[in-house]
């Protein structure tokens, strides 16, 4: 029997990543906070509800249409805090640099990090730098850890989801993944597709102000919308019904996906959130979202149903239904 090894697909955010976390990491490191497997860990200390999250960024290429690895490292961690309903306070940042990286590129990245942090209203208060020999890394890897604070009364968790909850998304899906992929593979389209990388705390805070009926927030990053929805229903006694007709998919992403044989529902986003909320609060939440620049295109894409439990089913435009499963393996370009 060959020894099992880490495959790239273990990092794709799909089923293999999920299994790796559940089976290899969680059992030995188990504790009640980690076990929630939420985007941000939330705990109380001396009367304060705090949120902490960490994320590493290894994107290739480090500069892509609509962003770079520096911006991503700030926004991504801010967004993980925001999905827990936490106002971001501070960040730490760690760099792993590959020997030979042009200093000018690093300068540009650090400037981009500065701007992103200012935009989010957070300070970076701790940092670390390591350098690895050429070929042992890929230009720049960045880790950021974020600390945030959660207001009294804010409670976002899968446990709050009820049958009948509406599912809202704040805009067009698949843009980040396609922007990075087209840049990486040297594919050119007439209209370049920009990454949707964006900080979402501003949007989330308006949503929290507007309604008590918000039950859960998730950001559909790696593995895309379909994978996140599957994580939500997994092992639970409810399912999700999606309307294909309602999914906001831009023309560029649609065209790229059709060409490459990809499904936009599995393509990564970096400025999107999926909200579960009680039906009578939909209007007030949508109204609040549309006031924010990152929520203008917000709309309802589906709802929570009682059956089939544990599954995401989509009504297709032509009137059929299909199962939406988790992403399995990397999405691979196909032969024909």
């Amino acid at each position: 029997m060959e020894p099992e090894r880490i495959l790239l697909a273990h990092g794709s955010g799909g089923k293999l990543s999920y299994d790796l976390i559940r089976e290899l990491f969680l059992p030995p490191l188990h504790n009640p906070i980690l076990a929630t497997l939420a985007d941000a860990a939330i705990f109380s200390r001396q009367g304060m509800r705090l949120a902490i999250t960490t994320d590493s960024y290894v994107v290739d290429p480090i500069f892509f249409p609509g962003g770079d690895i520096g911006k991503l490292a700030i926004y991504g961690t801010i967004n993980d805090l925001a999905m827990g309903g936490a106002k971001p306070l501070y960040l730490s940042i760690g760099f792993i640099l590959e020997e030979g990286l042009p200093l000018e590129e690093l300068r540009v990245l650090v400037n981009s990090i500065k701007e992103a942090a200012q935009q989010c209203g957070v300070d970076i208060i701790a940092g670390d730098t390591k350098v690895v020999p050429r070929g042992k890394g890929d230009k720049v890897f960045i880790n950021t850890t974020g600390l945030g604070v959660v207001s009294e009364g804010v409670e976002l968790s899968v446990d709050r989801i009820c049958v009948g909850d509406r599912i809202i998304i704040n805009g067009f899906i698949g843009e980040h993944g396609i922007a990075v992929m087209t840049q990486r593979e040297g594919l050119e389209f007439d209209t370049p597709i920009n990454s949707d990388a964006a900080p979402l705390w501003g949007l989330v805070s308006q949503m929290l102000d507007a309604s008590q009926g918000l039950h859960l927030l998730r950001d559909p990053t790696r593995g895309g919308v379909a994978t996140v929805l599957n994580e939500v229903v997994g092992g639970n006694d409810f399912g999700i019904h999606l309307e294909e007709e309602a999914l906001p998919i831009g023309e560029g992403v649609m065209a790229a996906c059709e060409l490459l044989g990809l499904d936009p529902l599995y393509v990564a986003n970096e400025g999107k959130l999926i909200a579960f909320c009680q039906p009578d609060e939909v209007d007030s939440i949508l109204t609040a979202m549309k006031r924010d620049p990152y929520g203008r295109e917000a709309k309802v894409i589906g709802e929570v149903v009682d059956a089939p439990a544990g599954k995401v089913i989509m009504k297709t435009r032509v009137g059929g239904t299909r199962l939406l499963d988790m992403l399995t393996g990397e999405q691979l370009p196909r032969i024909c």
Partner: protein
Amino acid sequence: MKYIDEFRDNSLARALARNIAHLAEGRPEVTLMEVCGTHTVTVFKHGLKDLIPDNVTLLAGPGCPVCVTPTDYIDKAIAYARLEGVTVATFGDLFRVPGSSSSLEKERAKGGDIRIVYSPLDALRFAQENGNRKVIFLGVGFETTAPLVAVSIQEAGRRGIRNYLVFIAHKVMPPPMEALVSDGELRIDGFLCPGHVSTIIGWGAYRFLSQQYRIPCVVAGFEPLDVLEGIVMLLRQIRNGDSQVENQYRRAVREQGNPRALSIMKEVFEIADSEWRGLGIIAGSGLTLRERYRGYDAEANIEVEIEPASSHPGCICGNVLKGVKTPLDCSLFRRVCTPENPLGACMVSSEGTCAIYYKYSNRA
């Protein structure tokens, strides 16, 4: 999006579904085979089975290039990837297909230089830029990909690139369809003929099936309305007792196909017998390089030893590819054979019947 929205229109789909129901009403069981894996994807991705009455069965055929490639090909590709100084370049689908004991994906994790490319020309460019490495492109696929590989070989000659090689397992389409109908194991009342292949070979290529075997054939496109209209056309032929080749995919397919692509293929390749997973060796169903291009043939120039191929004893991929079984008949399906741990090729490719059932079907 133009050319997409029109072909996914809800009211037109419902109208076609009514037409199908009308044509199928009161008839005994009708079995239609969609030969091409991409058609199977369309059927499941858009939930078309919900729009088709129970007495019309859609059967997935042997039209997934990765799935019909036998295990020993994968084993050999893996053996190439283990050689010092060799880069293996492949289309993405083949990457995770299990060989007898490994896969290209696992070999890459072990340090093999395996690259996923979108076109053989990308592999050729890599060869040109890395003169110290031998670059082997895995030439798998039907008439849709074979012309591209032929072009890359001609281009290598033109640019004097000597370190570009191809490992050919190309297959051609009409022969396995004939094998399926002459085999007699399966009753097929009509073929939904592959759209992409037909852009190259032309719809005239299926005429012998409708004439000699009296099987209705319709070449169809890949959008949901294309497939639904293709089914309407097949059912109409069946009702009228016709058997002819009709072309639903008029916006892409001509009777003669693409003469330029055909002539490039003919220049570089010659027809040979070829082994299909599940179907065995089918006469005249494959392509090999012509003598004057042998310098680019990986098999003729680099020797590797492989053990006799083995596959999982419970795997029924072969019968799934023939259409005599569905994934739901397989004891491994979903239980031990999953896309992340595939035991057979049909679970790997996005065009593979098992992967499609796993991914899209709520019925299992």
